[in-house]
């Protein structure tokens, strides 16, 4: 699935709510991906009301695939050096 990736320091996946953020974090951690839940950086959420999953030791591509597979709706994606194919 092709998604626009907004330039930001670190890798973030914004989901619809904090519940889905924590659910997504748990799913990613079960797959061995380090993840944490944070308020979304202003670069990818101007209103400042979104929550994001910050991805550690994996590519955004892989994390997105896993979350898509778990039917977690992704609102937007922000990353530094990673692109989505």
């Amino acid at each position, binding site marked *: 699935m092709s998604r626009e990736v907004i330039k930001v320091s670190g890798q973030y996946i914004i989901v619809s709510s904090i*519940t*889905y953020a924590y659910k997504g974090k748990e799913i990613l951690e079960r797959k061995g991906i380090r993840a944490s839940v944070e308020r979304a950086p202003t670069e990818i959420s101007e209103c400042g009301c979104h929550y994001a999953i910050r991805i550690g030791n994996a590519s955004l591509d892989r994390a997105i695939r896993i979350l898509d597979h778990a039917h977690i709706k992704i609102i937007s994606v922000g990353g530094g050096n990673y692109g989505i194919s």
Partner: protein
Amino acid sequence: MVYLDNAATTYPKPASVAQAVYDFMKDKGANPGRSGHKMSMAAAYEVYACRSAAAEMFNADGPECVAFTLNATHSINMALKGVLYKKGGHVITSDLEHNAVMRPLYKLSERGVRFSKAYVSLDNDDETVAEFERLINNDTVMIACTHASNVCGKILPIKRLGKLCKKYGLKFLVDASQTAGVIKIDMKECGIDYLCMPGHKGLYGPMGTGLLITSEGEKLHTIIEGGTGSNSESYSQPDFMPDRLESGTLNAPGIAGLRAGMRFASKILSGGIELSEMEYARTLYKSLSQIDGVELYTPLPDDGYVPVISFNIRGVASGELASALDKYGFALRGGLHCSPAAHERFGTLHRGMVRASFGAFNTKRDAIRLSAAVAQLAKQMKK
């Protein structure tokens, strides 16, 4: 004081519940899901962890299917009015319902929703299921019923009623006020679309906590809208769970306590804590049945009942008997138990019953002492 009013709310709560509430208020007392600072995130995780635990305990599809409410009544209102927001439709309920189900149905009847009450047999589930099936018509959209009566303790055959709903394409709402945490409930196995429960009864959480568990929350018409900490740029209520059904600040300290209570209840259900509440209820029933002038309303409760025994002394108002027992140091509930439908069924609408309901902290001695007190009062009060 011997507390035997656990069907109203369990008491005492496990010490871990009070500790969890205190710890939350002391260390994590920020608003969950609203801000991004560390304390708010810790509060949000506490809420999420309780959601996850509830989803696992009742075999829901996921933590997002768990909406926190104030109590079972709140949950039932959200589900009933959320499904039946259009004019018309027909609901089947039982003749043992609490007003938590009956009053919303009466309110809905003002806009054309009709409902029928199925007779629940106290000793033959085949008859109960047949009665529910007999009442289904072309307009029926839902079966909405209690899992167990708060007046007589009878458990309804919800697994079979769930199959009936599936067969006829009906929604299935279960009021688990007397059973959540007391009996294992598997939403998928029972075909439950809307599972409604309080947090402060068999789940041993604080009052002011309730749950509505559903995989269909996105489809519910909302009865309350407001801030959710999500989609804040829009004036429309979010279309995703649980935010759709959770407007306004949650009772997060209560939810932290509820999580601790659910751990306690889960240990009981998994056999980690030995409980004999039904044995005590049967002990009480047998003793009461030997006392001249005592009226009982069910057969000796078997596994088809929760530990609730209701009784009267012939010729004595239930409120008078409950007050007399209070003076002897027993906390029981007299009156109609907010369930006029059940009392109508038992012919006690005019006088109510006195209800003894057992919880995790009762003992056999409580049952024996209560029956001795009733025996004494029966001699004094019998008219």
